[in-house]
């Protein structure tokens, strides 16, 4: 039976990139459908009516949305190169930290990126606290998943390219080797890993995109 696997994504979405990594690591054949975030296709809206966002994974005609949920689906459907550990407690920890990454780390770094003055200072301080927790969680392992890339590495992988983009544009110091030696080393190991290193979106294109986004947010907040 021919298996149909389609991934709806945009060129830059870090959430969609998670699914790309998972599929590539597992060696799954799939088709990419590139979406324009400013003009989403009716097909995408049909498959994700609740959020109308990428990524959406379509497997044999059935759509799944929300990147972390897609990761779990992919791991349960294709058993090679396991992403989540076997032990329930370890699985719970991986899920906990992935949620922490999205809710706290991403949030605070983004706020620091788009804000100014006191608000930026506070957001940066918060981001540092959160990064410190990740630093401790790494605990001298090569990857969060141990010797191999796992679910949590994939969930936090956005740090490996977006932080550099933010730092370059804003001049802020977010994740440096002095304060976060283990995390900093992990960024490099992850970025350079086979499969991962072939998937990064263009750095220059990202710079352009986020400069524009930053201006947009700055303009919006100064007019309120």
């Amino acid at each position, binding site marked *: 039976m021919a298996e149909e696997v389609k991934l709806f994504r945009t060129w830059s979405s870090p959430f969609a990139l998670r699914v790309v990594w998972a599929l590539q690591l597992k060696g799954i054949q799939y088709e990419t459908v590139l979406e324009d975030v400013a003009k989403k296709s009716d097909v995408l809206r049909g498959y994700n009516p609740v959020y109308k966002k990428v990524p959406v994974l379509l497997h044999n005609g059935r759509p799944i949305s929300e990147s972390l949920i*897609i990761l779990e*689906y992919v791991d349960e459907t294709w058993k090679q190169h396991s992403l989540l550990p076997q032990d329930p407690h370890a699985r719970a920890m991986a899920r*906990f930290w992935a949620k922490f990454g999205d809710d706290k780390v991403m949030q605070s770094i983004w706020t620091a990126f788009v804000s100014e003055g006191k608000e930026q200072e506070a957001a940066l301080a918060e981001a540092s606290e959160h990064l410190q927790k990740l630093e401790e969680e790494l605990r001298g392992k090569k990857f969060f998943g141990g010797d191999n890339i796992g679910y949590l590495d994939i969930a936090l992988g956005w740090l490996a390219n977006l932080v550099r983009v933010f730092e370059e544009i804003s001049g802020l110091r977010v994740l440096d080797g002095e304060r976060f030696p283990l995390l900093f080393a992990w960024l490099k190991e992850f970025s350079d890993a086979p499969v991962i290193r072939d998937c990064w979106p263009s750095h220059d294109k990202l710079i352009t995109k986020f400069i524009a986004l930053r201006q947009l947010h700055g303009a919006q907040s100064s007019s309120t």
Partner: protein
Amino acid sequence: MAGRVVLHGMWASPYSKRVELALKAKGIEYEFVEEDLTNKSEALLRFNPVHKKVPVLVHDGKPIAESLVIIEYIDETWKEGPPLLPQDPYERAKVRFWAGFLQQQLFEAVFSVIKTDGEAQAKAVKEVHEKLKVLEEGIKVHEEVLGMKFLDPEKYPRVTSWVKALTELPLVKEATPPSEKLVGLLQFLRARALESAAA
């Protein structure tokens, strides 16, 4: 499955309640530690240093936080007893999706209605109806606090009947805190939120 199970929770927290329902549904013996959220126990702060929140499940001395993460852990650890998630990966994905939606989208919106007034509240109310249309979901006790009805059986027949079916389950009935107590707490939270907004 051996091992001491302790749940740090709070009687009014729906997050805490979820975990209780999961434990009860599986027939797992557990100790409940009622936390005073204005004076959190040293144990809670030690078990959940990252968020310092309830619920936290402590199994054999090992803590797990985040209610949905805890529920998956319970399902994976105690295989005897009814499964909480379906077997099929696609069905599991759907359950996880709606659980996330309920938590992030609907619950937050309903709580906004409790905490606001005037124009801000009207906006929040609109948002709630929008979310409800998507899911057809409601929270009964909040209706009493505001004198507003969200769960209209004509507008949201499936959600209304789902909530009814849930609330009639013996294990849910037993675990549900008394309505007057919840209403009292929500009225207090509303008054406090409106005060601080006006200040």
